[in-house]
């Protein structure tokens, strides 16, 4: 029986499937960081303008996720972590997901341009193209550095929240200046980097077909770069004592987990693992994947904590 015969005439996709295309967990982080950028940015922004801007950024990020899933449906179907996604599982067709992503991209960029300013809208559009086109289509399939370079997409869209000209635009620029280092550091940080990469690499091996360039085993040098960058806002006066405490304590925890990951054998290529035989090697990597997962989870927590510290300081007047 062919695929055309088994497939229903009309799509049976539910609205929930389309919502899953937006990667709601990623969206929630986007909303949180964008809202923090708004609160901390100098100058007053109309709350309604701000709320609509955050909504546009969230929908734009979701649209990029939908395009990513549309483009990667076949590969996602091969990996355990992603095979339940709507396109990979066949609940939403590739063309439908693509159309959904394109329409939401256009609407979110257009509305952000009308609501805030066209610079912000242009940056949102650039982010979507960068993530869905450059990262998904080019980087991810060609280089082990894909998540290092691609992680920058996460730093693009969130902080251009100043509205209009004059003070609004200044607020937008200031928000960029304030948050980009932290955001970029968190996005490019080895936690997201190695955690995601190692997990993806592991599942790629499980699938035995969805092979992607996998980053080499954890390199503690990157953690040594990341932690000072995360602390830097406190040193240059952007963050106050709360931020300093959170960034230093979190940084120590982060370094500890990075060291634990480095000492583990997670991410070693199976043929380099000392175990005998490919199956044994895979199981070995799997058993050692916990440090990678822990570091990945902690990197997200660290990012949230850094932004929460900025938020607390801004709301309590403790910030710089």
């Amino acid at each position: 029986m062919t695929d055309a015969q088994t497939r229903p005439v009309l799509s049976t996709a539910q609205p929930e499937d389309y919502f899953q295309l937006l990667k709601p967990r990623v969206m929630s982080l986007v909303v949180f960081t964008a809202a923090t950028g708004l609160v901390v940015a100098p100058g007053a922004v109309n709350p309604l303008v701000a709320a609509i801007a955050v909504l546009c950024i969230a929908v734009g990020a979701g649209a990029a996720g939908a395009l990513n899933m549309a483009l990667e449906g076949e590969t996602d179907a091969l990996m355990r972590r992603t095979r339940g996604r709507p396109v990979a599982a066949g609940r939403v067709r590739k063309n439908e997901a693509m159309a959904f992503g394109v329409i939401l991209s256009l609407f979110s960029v257009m509305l952000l341009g009308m609501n805030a300013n066209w610079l912000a809208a242009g940056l949102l559009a650039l982010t979507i193209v960068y993530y869905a086109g450059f990262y998904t289509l080019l980087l991810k399939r060609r280089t082990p550095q894909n998540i290092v370079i691609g992680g920058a997409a996460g730093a693009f869209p969130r902080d251009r929240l100043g509205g209009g000209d004059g003070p609004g635009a200044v607020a937008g620029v200031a928000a960029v200046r304030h948050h980009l280092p932290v955001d970029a550091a968190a996005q490019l940080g080895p936690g997201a980097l190695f955690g995601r990469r190692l997990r993806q690499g592991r599942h790629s091996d499980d699938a035995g077909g969805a092979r992607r360039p996998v980053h080499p085993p954890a390199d503690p040098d990157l953690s040594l770069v990341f932690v000072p960058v995360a602390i830097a806002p406190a040193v240059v006066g952007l963050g106050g004592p709360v931020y300093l405490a959170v960034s230093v304590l979190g940084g120590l925890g982060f370094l500890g987990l990075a060291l634990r990951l480095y000492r583990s054998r997670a991410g070693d290529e199976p043929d380099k693992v000392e175990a005998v035989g490919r199956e044994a090697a895979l199981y070995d990597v799997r058993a050692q994947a916990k440090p990678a997962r822990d570091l990945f989870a902690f990197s997200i927590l660290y990012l949230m904590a850094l932004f929460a510290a900025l938020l607390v300081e801004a709301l309590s007047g403790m910030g710089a």
Partner: protein
Amino acid sequence: MRLTPDELNARKRRNLFIALGLVAFIILVFLTTVLRLQQNQADARAALEGPGVIEAEPAAR
């Protein structure tokens, strides 16, 4: 072509959410327009009243 109950039900739910999305978009565009008008009005008033008052005073005397 006969559609199954599942297909009909899914289409109905999708259409409902598309309608809700469109209504939400219309409301957002309306709110954005109102906010923009208010902002532009305020800017125009400030441009007219600000330097104009200072310059007009000597001429009135």
